[in-house]
């Protein structure tokens, strides 16, 4: 069966899986951003917490994704089979790039600017919100972009624990030894990744302070 015919015949199913995939990714990204950006702000002036947070986030990232999904299944409340487990795993996976870029962005600011801010009588929280954060925006967004691309790819594996998404086609295709079925999952996933990359790159350029 040609891939094209399979696409046409299963377009409704593919579209649904794509929507499902996007929901997984977007939900995980909302959680990851909600955790990693505030945490990144918090660790600017707290070296101990910084080492712990960056260390933990690095560990999550080094666990092979299939193993991470597997580890989570037996854990109560967050685990089990299905979407919830997948979202937890994807969130953990997305933390490091966002956390690291938030920290690097907030601390990589021209020392003369920070010195002037402090010497003019800005409080640490004013410096954070009015100077560091606006100047770090583009770098933080670059981290979000990296994390999104990774998450779109890793989310295909979420099908292995019954979370649905485009991985469903890929796993099915592998089992059926059918390129057409694999491509039905892989091509939309790749397109999603490219689309997200372009969109976020555009946003990053708009937010860059010259």
């Amino acid at each position, binding site marked *: 069966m040609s891939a094209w015919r399979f696409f046409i015949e299963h377009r409704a199913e593919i579209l649904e899986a794509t929507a499902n995939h996007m929901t997984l990714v977007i939900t995980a990204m909302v959680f990851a951003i909600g955790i990693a950006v505030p945490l990144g702000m918090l660790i600017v002036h707290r070296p101990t917490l910084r080492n712990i947070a960056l260390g933990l986030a690095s560990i999550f990232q080094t666990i092979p994704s299939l193993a991470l999904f597997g580890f989570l299944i037996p854990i109560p409340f967050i685990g089990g089979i299905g979407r919830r487990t997948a979202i937890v795993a994807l969130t953990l996976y997305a933390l490091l790039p966002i956390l690291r870029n938030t920290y690097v962005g907030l601390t990589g600011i021209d020392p003369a600017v920070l*010195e002037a801010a402090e010497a*003019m009588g800005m409080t640490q929280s004013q410096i954070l919100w009015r100077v560091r954060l606006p100047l770090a925006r583009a770098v933080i967004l670059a981290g979000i972009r990296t994390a999104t691309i990774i998450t779109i790819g890793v989310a295909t594996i979420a099908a292995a624990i019954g979370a649905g998404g485009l991985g469903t086609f890929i796993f099915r295709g592998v089992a059926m030894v059918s390129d057409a079925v694999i491509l039905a999952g892989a091509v939309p996933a790749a397109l999603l990744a490219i689309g997200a990359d372009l969109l976020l790159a555009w946003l990053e350029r708009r937010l860059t302070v010259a």
Partner: protein
Amino acid sequence: MNAKNGSDNSDHTVQFRNVTYRINSTDRHNIVNKISFAATSGETLVLLGRSGSGKTTLLRLINRLLAPTDGQVMVGGRATTEWDPIRLRRGIGYVIQDAGLFPHFTVAENVALVPTLEKWDAARTSSRVSELLTLVGLDPAEFAARKPHELSGGQRQRVGVARALGADPKILLMDEPFGALDPVTRAELQQEFGALARRLGKTIVFVTHDLREALLLASRIILLQNGRMVTDATPQEFPQIDHPEVRAFTASLDPPTGAQA
């Protein structure tokens, strides 16, 4: 916090009382060593010295970016350690070599920094911004809406001076403010700033390693060497002083200027 308005202290004197500063108390090496001097309104006190002589440290002790290890730095009659540092700093203008303008702020927003922090109303702030830009020789209509990266080095430094004067501080600290400029622009700004300083009547403490700049702007010159005070002299007295470090500095002047001086 014992916050006080800058307006209720009429004393704008900066006074060092036997001040010593070390990075940490176990360190034997004093960055500045037993320094005493005072600077008052209308005066431009220049701290002159080589790199590492401790002059920038002295400046940072005034607005409590640093606190003395020993002795006291008095500002407006109170030790800096007794001030709320935020309140202290908002009453002290600060200009540094690279200007340190906020790249995401317009020129007007940069100049309005302290008035904004002090919650001035919009009308008062914007008239103050225009007044200050005019004062430093920038046309508000042309420059107010620009971003720092759209300015030349000299223009950025003018904005830096305007920002430091934002809420009309009584004390102005300047750390080699013209050091990164090309020689022609530097000479222009030095001339203009000298005239401005005489008009403003503020207590100005000015750090430089350039004797020519010191002679041009100072009402008094304090020469520092390895964290110690070598001399405290007027620009007229300074070249006559018999001290190896003074001679090293006078020798650094170009022969033509030296001959004229």
